[in-house]
Structure formats: structure tokens, C-alpha cells
């Protein structure tokens, strides 16, 4: 149990997928201008990331490793992720049209989110088991959501702040992201190892 709790805390705070590993920066910068869309994106990513971490573990463990095909990991994980996203989109569209509307264009775009592929590959690299992979995927997703929502809230405030001319727009956003990243470095002492 402690092990899973540690994985969770480690992925959410210490090894945050965005601010420490620098994965998934595109949606982090692109979808963070409004809190509402950021929340939608966070929800969708959480779901897909967890599910695809589980699925790619299964594919790796029961298909690629027995057949000695580890070199196909990247391409088969991309396949798995694309299918999971497409499947999620269909199910959400059917079961919850409102959520589908909120997520909108962001749902299919998760296919190319590098955080999703990154987590699948990191799971293999760190030789996680089934539950560990699931928790790792979920933790990474929660970390991504946390940072995305925080950043969106900050950018909403920066939008009305009096920013010096030269720093307006993406410049101040990148500086903010850098400061956030430095702040998250403070968590490094939280878990040892």
C-alpha cells in the first residue's frame, strides 16, 4: 500500500510530468488560457492517461515480451493510445453528450499528447507491474491536471494584470511556467529515492 501511495505522491508532486519531466507541454501552454477548458482537458487526459497506461502495459507484457518484440514498443503504444482515445470519444459521446461538448476538440487531440506516450514508455523503463503502471498513469494524470488548472488560473489573472509591454502574451506565460517549475523543485526533498 505504501508503495502505491509513494508512486502517487512521487508522480503528482515530485516527478511532475509537466514541470519536472517536461512532457505534455503543448496542452500545458495551449489549453491553459481559460480555466474552463483547462478543467475539461484535465478530465479527459486523466481518463485517457490512466486507461492507456493500463492497456499498453497489457500489450507489452502479454504480446511484445513473449514474442521478443520489445523494439516495437513505441509504435504499438501509439496504436494503443489512438484506439483508447477513439474508444473514449465514442463512449463519452454516447453516454454523456454534455461532457463531450465540454471536452470538444481536446479529446481527439490527446492522441498526440506526448505525456500519454511518455507515461507508457516510462512504465516499461521502470519495470512497473500491472497495478504500479495503473497508479503511475493515474498519478501522472493527476499531476498534469493539477498543474494545468493552477497554470490556467494564474494565466487568467495575468491576462488582466499590467504586464510590461515586452513580456506580454507567451513570454510572461513561459516565465510563469518556469517559476512554477522551480517551485515544484521544492518537492524534491519530500520523497527519498
Amino acid at each position, binding site marked *: 500500500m505504501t508503495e502505491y501511495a509513494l508512486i502517487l505522491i512521487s508522480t503528482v508532486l515530485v516527478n511532475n510530468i509537466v514541470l519536472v519531466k517536461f512532457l505534455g*507541454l*503543448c*496542452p500545458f*501552454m*495551449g*489549453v*491553459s*488560457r*481559460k480555466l474552463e*477548458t483547462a478543467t475539461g*482537458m484535465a478530465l479527459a*487526459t486523466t481518463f485517457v492517461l490512466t486507461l492507456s497506461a493500463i492497456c499498453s502495459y497489457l*500489450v507489452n507484457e502479454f*504480446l*511484445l515480451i513473449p*514474442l*521478443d*518484440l520489445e523494439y*516495437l514498443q513505441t*509504435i*504499438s503504444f501509439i*496504436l*494503443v493510445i489512438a*484506439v483508447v482515445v*477513439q*474508444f473514449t470519444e*465514442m*463512449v463519452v*459521446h*454516447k*453516454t454523456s*453528450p454534455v461532457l463531450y461538448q465540454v471536452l*470538444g*476538440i*481536446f479529446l481527439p*487531440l*490527446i492522441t*498526440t*499528447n*506526448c505525456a500519454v506516450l511518455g507515461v507508457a514508455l516510462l512504465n516499461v523503463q521502470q519495470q512497473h507491474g500491472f497495478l504500479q503502471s495503473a497508479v503511475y498513469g493515474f498519478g501522472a494524470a493527476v499531476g498534469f491536471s493539477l498543474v494545468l488548472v493552477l497554470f490556467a488560473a494564474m494565466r487568467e489573472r495575468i*491576462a488582466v494584470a499590467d504586464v510590461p509591454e515586452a513580456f*506580454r*502574451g*507567451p513570454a510572461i*506565460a513561459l516565465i510563469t511556467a518556469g517559476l512554477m517549475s522551480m517551485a515544484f523543485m521544492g518537492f524534491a526533498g519530500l520523497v527519498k529515492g
Partner: protein
Amino acid sequence: MLSALLALGILGVLFGLLLGYAAIRYKVEGDPLVDKIDAILPQTQCGQCGYPGCRPYAEAIARDEADINRCPPGGETVIIALADLLGRDPKPLDETCGEEKPKMVAYIHEELCIGCTLCIQACPVDAILGAAKQMHTIIESECTGCELCVAPCPVDCIEMVPVKQGLDSWKWPAPPPPPYERPAADDDPAAEPAGAH
């Protein structure tokens, strides 16, 4: 080599079957035509067509239950646009629904208003500002001119006034509706609404 091809091939076929099954199992009974019709309608939500709002009217047209000439606020423009979209012949506006008028907004004579909130409840677009026993007023930019607030007013203090086209009220003609909403409209060209890579 062969096993790699086979493994990926089988994986692809399996996933294809899964998605194919999901496409049938989770098929959405949405009619894209309704959205197109709804986009043409003026969204006054006035109910003059006999349906509770523009969306229900659009659904009725798509189901072939309602004629295309029942929208007085839209007038001839909307009838022609609908006729174009549906491949029917345009016909004159149905007199039983109302007549085409210039664009109006409601105006509350504030010295007469008793603050009963009845018009607020009637307004389909929340364009009336006020509270119980407080004077009400119309948010002119929100008002669609549907006249639904005129009848409930117990002291008849709401009047419909035509919108004069002046420097303040002139607008560019509406562009076609965008396929989806962009996250925000500020001056940030680097951040596309993409969540990719």
C-alpha cells in the same frame, strides 16, 4: 520479422474490430441537419413558431413536421436560407405566426415599474436586470426583441422600440458560425487551441 508483422497486424485487426463494434454499439442518434437549421434560425427563443424555442423548431423542421415559414423574427432571409439548405421552395411568411418587424428591443418605463419580477421570469435570454421591489431594466445588447416580457407585465410598462442603426449599434454582419469555440480571444498567437505533441 514475421512474428513482428503478424503481432502488429493482429493487434491492428483486433483494435479495428473493437472500434468497429464500439461504433455500432455507441452510435449517436444525432442529426447534423438539426444543427445546421438551428444555426440559421435567429435564436430569439420567442416561440412565435409554436415551438418552445429555436432548437425545438429546428428539430421539427428536420423531422418534416413544421414548415419553414414560421419564423417571424428571421423573416424572408431565414426562409430563403432554409429553403436553400433543405432544397424546398421558399414561401411567404405564415401569417398565423406573426409578421416580420424591424429589429426591436424591449424598453422598460422605469418610473412605472413596480418590481414584480414577472418579466424576468418570462425572458428566455436573461436580458432583464432587477430584483423584487426594485426597478427593472433591459440589457439592450442581450435583448432579442421576442416580446415575451410584454404580456406578463401587470402595469404595462414594457414597450418595444425599434433599434435605430447608429454608430453605437451598427455591427458587422455575423460571420458563419465557427466549427468550435477557441479557448480565448486574446493576443496570443503562439498558443494554438491544440493539445498536441
